[in-house]
């Protein structure tokens, strides 16, 4: 539901600074500024920063570390006119979000939602929904029949759990499809590749690899291509890393789901600016972009 400034008890400090026409200090905290996604989000934040009267700053821990994310926000609390956050851990960050909101600092979530907190709105992709889309795509390319392995670089992460449940739900609607296992690949690129390699050797009769994130997607594609199993083993994954785009264009990966990270970063700032400007804001679905060999040329410069 839409929320607006009237219903919000803004900290006097912020109200005064808006009154005085000072630039808005918007902080965008991302859950791991060292992952491959962060540069896109940062680009969106920087685009938003170009607007007059907006100081947008991109912050967050190196490596997904809840403590570090909390400490940083806590430290910068007094300088914030608004915070957009993508939480390392929804449960761990919720109390802090609530504390900020209570202190009169508007907080929205983006990229990764924190629905149980007092955040105002969420901008991003519905993770369960995007998992469902991935599942559907996989079912489609398999014609409703086959053995599927799910891969993820962090099986225990919240976003991974959400996408996995969506994907399993969608795949479960097809009797002919069996989810063989969820492979936890680890995060190092070599490790990811080796894990897929070993798993495919242990069970050579897998028909589809469904990757839940940016990074095991190209690895799965590379494995398929290098072992001459293109078309024989289908790959569906996430995001538009260079390598992924190329593999989709070559028909190695059948489909990938984009979540427009740059837009997420931009919208995160924009929503807060809008809110502080007195206009109501509401949840924003940044959408599920589906790219297949047919339309992937759109994202190739």
């Amino acid at each position, binding site marked *: 539901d839409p929320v607006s400034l009237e219903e919000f008890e803004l900290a006097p400090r912020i109200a005064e600074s808006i009154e005085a026409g000072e630039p808005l200090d918007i902080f965008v905290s991302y859950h791991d*500024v*060292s992952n491959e996604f962060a540069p896109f989000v940062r680009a969106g934040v920087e685009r938003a920063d170009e607007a007059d009267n907006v100081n947008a*700053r991109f*912050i*967050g*821990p*190196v*490596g*997904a*570390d*809840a*403590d570090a994310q*909390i*400490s*940083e926000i*806590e*430290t*910068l609390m*007094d*300088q914030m006119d608004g915070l957009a956050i993508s939480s*390392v*851990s929804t*449960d*761990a960050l919720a*109390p802090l979000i609530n504390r900020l909101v209570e202190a009169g600092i508007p907080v929205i979530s983006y990229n990764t939602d924190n629905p149980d907190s007092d955040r105002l709105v969420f901008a991003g992709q519905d993770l369960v929904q995007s998992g469902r889309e991935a599942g559907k795509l996989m079912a489609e390319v398999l014609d409703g029949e086959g053995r599927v392995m799910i891969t993820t670089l*962090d*099986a*225990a*992460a*919240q976003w991974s*759990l959400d996408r996995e449940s969506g994907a399993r739900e969608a795949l479960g609607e097809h009797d002919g499809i069996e989810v063989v296992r969820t492979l*936890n690949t680890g995060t190092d690129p070599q490790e990811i590749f080796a894990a897929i390699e070993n798993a495919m050797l242990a069970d050579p009769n897998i028909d589809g690899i469904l990757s839940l994130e940016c990074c095991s997607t190209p690895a799965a594609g590379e494995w398929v291509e290098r072992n001459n199993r293109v078309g024989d083993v289908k790959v569906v994954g996430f995001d538009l890393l260079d390598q992924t785009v190329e593999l989709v264009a070559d028909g190695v990966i059948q489909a990938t789901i984009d979540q427009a990270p740059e837009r997420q970063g931009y919208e995160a700032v924009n929503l807060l600016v809008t809110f502080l400007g007195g206009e109501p804001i509401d949840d924003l679905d940044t959408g599920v972009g589906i790219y297949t060999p047919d339309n992937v040329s759109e994202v190739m410069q």
Partner: protein
Amino acid sequence: MPPTAGSPRYSPTRVSLARRVLTAKETGVFLALVVMCLFLAFATESFLTTTNLLNVGRQISLLGIMAIGMTFVLVSGEIDLSVGSTYALGGLATGMFIISGWPLLPALGAGLLIGAAVGLANGLLSTYGRLPSLIATLGMLSIIRGSALLLTGGQPVTVNERNGAAPDVLARFEFMGQGYLFGVVPMQLVFFAAVAALGWLLLSRTAFGFRVFAVGGSAKAARVSGIHVQSVKIWAFVIMGTLAALAGILSMAFLPSGQAGRTGLGLELDVIAAVVIGGASLAGGIGTVLGTVLGVLVIGVLRNGLVLMGVSPFMQEVMIGLVIIIAVAIDKWSMRSRST
């Protein structure tokens, strides 16, 4: 300089306080800390505010609690790489006990016991098992992390009523991690202060502490003095394991959530860095609780300062590495200039 400097304990004449402070072992790291604080006080507006200082206090507490334990282990001549995993396992286990309906004290006790048991295993492997402790605890790092993952199935554990925590238990548990003593001092900091005080007493005032130094300085000579080297080292590991679990439990109480794949990952290196910045020697026999507290403060103030000054996160990584190197180098060099 006469060799009495810095050890006024047995010297017949009382040395003036200033003199004692200036020749104390902790001078190097203390100076580093003062320089950093002065710089931040001028360079930023918010560093010297009460809120910020209390924040720093809270942010260093868990690292600090573990660093006190690591001081015992390093002084005894060993090392413990498994503390990040123990931190995770202890906290997660306690959290799971609480949401499965246990009362507070048994849940806490069980969590601490798990930590103590890990310490015991580390100690047995490193003494009777004759493994270098770096290897024994490296193996345990992996074993304990895996156990935490198995225990939780890799799922995040969140301690709240919805998951089954009894409201009164939850309230008291959360107070441990999130509460404030007298409404001002974060409870985590209170725990850290208490652990530091007890640790100081134990290490520098008791027979056990004496033995830890003796064993770390020269295990053979300690044995000739009738000191049971193995049991002293095992106790040092048990203290470490228990404190790692305590820190993990407090983290659980603060957040109040944790995840086996992530909680405390890589923490061991931070903890060791803090203790070594505080002047302890990896070769054993040297180290003080005061130095460790200062070392922890250096890391805490540095992190806080970098954030306050808006240093980019990547640059922060570089700066942290530099400060570790510089702080220890200052310490080495000031020691050297004092001894020649």
